[in-house]
């Protein structure tokens, strides 16, 4: 494994009352690669990415980002470190248009005290970002509620990129999508990798993971069972790890 580590969880631990969701996980995420995190329901994947994206705070352990010990304090803190999450439900505001969704929380402003929205600047930048990821959205003033699943995914990824996201977390990005839209999203992930972005991909779909990921890490009952390079692993081996058999 000669790739460079961009993010590392160090003995990260998280409990919710009596439920020990993440157990002392030390995980390495590689720069410019698609790092898949797989596991059965309740394995702790979603909790781990919420810890990385700042949506939750760990009870114990910490993070090392670009080699530096770092504390991720909330989603805004994660954005500051170049980490942006695209949640399974995408966390888009249905009744707002594409541009406002892409800039929500990081709006471009102008004028005295920077209180006025820079509508023109946001429109232009939204077009540029969506073009970069080859998203097919005919009208960026369209309400998000009128977009297809693939288009929504592109909007959410576009928002992550606008925030300067270098590490993009994608939680089950194809879970509710049809065949064509799934291909669109996989193409999108490929484009992001080509652009040098680091992807953390949460997925249940092992075939899909083997199709797109560079590294495959498996969680079981809150623990990290192991990490495999895609080319060195087999589906059978990963499935066995998902069922709790440790990698040698």
């Amino acid at each position, binding site marked *: 494994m000669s790739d460079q580590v961009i993010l590392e969880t160090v003995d990260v631990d998280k409990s919710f009352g009596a439920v020990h969701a993440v157990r002392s996980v030390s995980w390495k995420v590689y720069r410019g690669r698609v790092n898949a995190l797989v596991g059965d329901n309740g394995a702790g994947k979603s909790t781990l990415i919420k810890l990385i994206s700042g949506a939750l705070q760990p009870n114990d352990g910490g993070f090392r980002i670009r080699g530096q010990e770092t504390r991720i304090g909330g*989603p805004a803190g994660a954005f500051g470190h170049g980490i942006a999450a695209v949640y399974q439900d995408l966390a888009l505001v249905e009744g707002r248009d594409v541009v406002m969704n892409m*800039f*929500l*929380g990081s709006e471009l402003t102008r004028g005295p005290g920077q209180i006025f*929205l820079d509508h023109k600047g946001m429109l232009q930048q939204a077009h540029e970002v969506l073009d970069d990821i080859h998203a097919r959205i005919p009208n960026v003033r369209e309400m998000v509620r009128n977009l297809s699943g693939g288009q929504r995914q592109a909007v959410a990824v576009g928002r992550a990129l606008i925030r300067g996201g270098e590490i993009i977390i994608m939680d089950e990005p194809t879970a509710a999508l049809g065949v064509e839209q799934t291909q669109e999203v996989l193409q999108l992930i490929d484009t992001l990798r080509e652009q040098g972005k680091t992807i953390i991909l949460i997925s249940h779909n092992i075939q899909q993971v083997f199709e797109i990921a560079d590294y495959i890490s498996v969680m079981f009952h809150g623990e990290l069972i192991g990490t495999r390079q895609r080319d060195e692993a087999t589906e059978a081996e990963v499935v066995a790890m998902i069922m709790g058999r440790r990698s040698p």
Partner: protein
Amino acid sequence: MLGFLNQGELSLSRRRREQLLFLMDNGIYVVTILLFIAFIFLAPYFFTTRNLVNVLISASLAGIVTAGYTVAILAGQIDTSTQGVLAVATVTTALLFEEVGLSLPLTVILALGAGIAAGLFNGVIVVNGRIVAFVATLATSGVLLAISLFLSGGQTITIAREGLQEVVFIRLFGIPSSVWIMFMCYIVGWVMLTQTKLGAHIYATGADYRAALLSGVPVNRVIRVALVISALTAALTAILVTARAKQSAMFGLAIAGSVDFVTALTAVLLGGFSLFGGVGRIERNLVAVLFLTILGNGLQLMDVATGVILIVRGFALVFAVILSVLRARMT
């Protein structure tokens, strides 16, 4: 008959849905114009300069409250403390100006300050107490009404001193100052909601609290600001009502009054806003306020009994709530 309100998302084609939403959003313009034309023929003295100015003055008072109320609704907060804030601010204005003898500017600043304090208090209870705004502000309203009764001794405070009422009767191009103040509130509100970062955050927080939070929007601060703006406009209205009447108004008892939370809520919903936040345009509320004011004024001029007018207003709210729920089902 209303079983369709209990269904899930209405299954409509996208085009049909957009058409219906357009109608729901803009129908208020057409209905208001039709009502205006109807009263020209049906209500004696309706289409006279004197009456139309009166309509504007009445609309201005309800309009100012509604402008701020709109902001709270947009942020997803149903603020029911309007009555209480109005009561405290009217008593504060009358007491400070008449009995304490403060100057007009200082009186206005302190009365507005009372509104801001009430809004901040609402914000603390809603945000820090994690209590639904409808319930939290209802409780606050009770406290504020009690405070106003305590401060006034349960009596109306009459203002004999000169200098307050005159301000309300100042006219510019024949239009009273309260109407200009209302227009200013709507212009400021429109700019804030459509052209500023705060406005974008208010819409997002009301439309989808979780999505806004995960996007890094300071949702708690947004809710606090929205509740303060709502209380601030209620206090401003109270000052104008007090000045116009030259006495403190008994808002707690004036259930038939046209300046209250029910009017504001009706106007907001008729204006195409969602009861659940995040949807609507403030300029439509101005038209909705005019609609409600014209309706009350026209019926009064037709000698319709006050009870019947109140029933009509009640049905307007019921209709507005149905519209709002339908809208939510469609989106």
